[in-house]
């Protein structure tokens, strides 16, 4: 059946190249058609807008009867994508896979996953907590990541063009909160990692969690 696999993948790559409307690209890395790079623009009206996302695609031996293996190469701040490894939590990449699905349709599904996160089935628990705790702050962080890692143009109004996101912004934290602790003499990296872990943002900024952060810092 490997002939069928090769025929099908080649056809998929060809069809995708022909289709100019979907804005999805699938390219070969080397001469093997079974290890590819897919890419699509961040969906409009999301924090990912303007970013360009690359996906590592591995075609398994039993394709299309086994799901294709995909992960983000571009770093993305999203509850269903690991912020460290790019691993994706999506049903059609696992048990909901169907041989009828194609590389293109799967990439489109990833694109719509960026529109509609599923925070109750997270791949990255810290990001999902952030998403549920404070949507505005989450969106801002996702946008900072898009600008820092996915070449999204910095937003016209709020930030001056070309401004690089700070480490606090990339972690989804307010500068004010970080400085509050670094002024006590704790190192900036330590403060950011602990505030991130304890989801110290939005409604979680209160005297109780303040104490929890202090305890963690003093450990």
């Amino acid at each position: 059946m490997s002939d069928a696999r090769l025929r099908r993948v080649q056809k998929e790559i060809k069809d995708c190249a022909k289709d100019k409307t979907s804005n999805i690209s699938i390219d070969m890395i080397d001469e093997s058609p079974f290890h590819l790079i897919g890419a699509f623009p961040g969906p409009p009206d999301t924090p990912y807008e303007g970013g360009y996302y690359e996906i590592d695609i591995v075609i398994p031996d039993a394709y299309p009867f086994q799901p294709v293996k995909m992960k983000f190469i571009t770093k993305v701040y999203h509850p269903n994508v690991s912020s460290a490894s790019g691993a994706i939590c999506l049903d059609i990449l696992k048990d909901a896979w169907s041989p009828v699905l194609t590389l293109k349709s799967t990439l489109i599904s990833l694109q719509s996953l960026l529109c509609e996160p599923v925070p109750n089935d997270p791949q990255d628990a810290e990001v999902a907590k952030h998403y549920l705790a404070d949507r505005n702050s989450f969106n801002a962080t996702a946008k900072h990541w898009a600008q820092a890692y996915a070449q999204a143009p910095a937003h016209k109004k709020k930030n001056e063009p070309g401004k690089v996101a700070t480490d606090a912004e990339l972690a989804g934290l307010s500068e004010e909160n970080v400085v509050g602790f670094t002024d006590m003499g704790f190192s900036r990296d330590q403060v950011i990692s602990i505030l991130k872990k304890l989801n110290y943002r939005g409604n979680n900024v209160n005297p109780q969690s303040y104490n929890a952060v202090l305890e963690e810092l003093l450990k």
Partner: protein
Amino acid sequence: MSSDGDNDDFLYEDEYDDGFDQDDIDSTSEPDVYDAMSPAIEEAPQKKPYDVSWKVKTLQEIIDMQNKEIMKVQSLLEVPASSAAILLRHYVWNSEKLQEQFWNDPAQALEEAGLSPPSSPTTHTSTQPTGLFECPICCMEYDYSSTYSMGCEHRFCKDCWMEYLTGKIKGEGESAKIQCMESGCKRIVREEVIDDLVTHDISKRYHNLLNAAFVADSPTLRWCPHPNCEYIIECSQAPTRMLNQLVPTVECKCGHDLCFGCGYSASHRPVLCRIVKLWEKKCADDSETANWLQANTKECSKCQSTIEKNGGCNHMTCKKCKWEFCWVCMGPWSEHGTSWYQCNRYDEKSGIDARDTQAKSRASLERYLHYFNRWANHEHSAKLDAEFYQKTEKKMEQMQNSGNLSWIEVQFAKQAVDAVIKARITLKWSYCMAFYLKRNNMTELFEDNQRDLERAVENLGYLLEQNISDTDSIAKLRQDITNQAAYVQKRHDILMDDTLRGYLERRWEFTVDT
């Protein structure tokens, strides 16, 4: 499961009606081979309130059970047999629930089970200009005769169907829940379709998986866990909720015991399934090894190698670094002068603290090891006894040939060894039980019974090791062994009976939740 309709034929043997009448637990007696040995225990086999009755089924009987149920549903709901099968599997063979749902809303019941009602006959809309069909999966063109679609009209070539179904069955072990290849289509592929589309081997495997799923889904069925045994045990008297007061040991036709409650591949009576699980986990746990190391070893005070002292005096010489030190105070040996067999430095404060922590971990470990060693010892001995029997069997044959003993007269040795092995297995588990029992009067009675059985077993073991080739003393030895074996059997039954009854009377208190 109500596959049988009537409960009368659930019993493994004919029931004896001797007045035992329990609400939940009905029973037959285990066949007792020892009855023939001794007139002392020649009673009619009794039904015990803690025994369960069971039936050993063949694979064919399991298939018949399913077919019977399918036929019933087929005629009741007026659906094809394969639809009835899919419906039953969806409702986990609960035909009452299936009927209720079906009569409530037939269309919904069918759809939920993956059987949307048959739509209009296939319309060949996706025909290529060539009159051929292009399979959306392998992108090849086929004549319609080489393609297939179910009622959902999702058409694919037969090669892709075969590849897909083979992968599901062989690769993922799926059976009852294989759906259409179309994304999001929940239609279940019927049995006869699968048989038609895959090779004979795969179809066979598919049916095996269906049967395995049927047995696994049924609370009253369990596969015999012994290798190469294909029988299935049916028992309706040991539901999970009863397992805190019942140890449902059953015997398969292959000759092996198993526990119907947890699938343990031997009798673990008199211990409850849950306790057995805890015990096995504890024994397998590496932390116990670590505990042992902590309590039984010390580190060389110079090179930190771990040392276990296995005898000899306190003057230690590290094998690795040749450092000489005192095992008691861990100080250098040079300071000990000539008092080689005692350490007068023991009470110095420096050593006391270190030894205290060691003592604490040692106490809990020693308790565990006490029970574990006895548990393991009986298991080991039971194996040795079985080997020992292999050797004596030859001697028995010789006795039979040379002496004037008949075949039946030399069987006493086999029966005695059987009694020892059986008692040792029970003793083994009794130590697991004792480890988890709370210290109280009931536990003391339990340990009295345990001690009596242990003594009887050791005595019989001693007798069995006597040289039985001497024809003159053989008659006396035979008598002794027969008597002692009967005594072992009696003590065994007392321990087992009392313990198993104790569950029903809620006499046992454990240090863990059951």
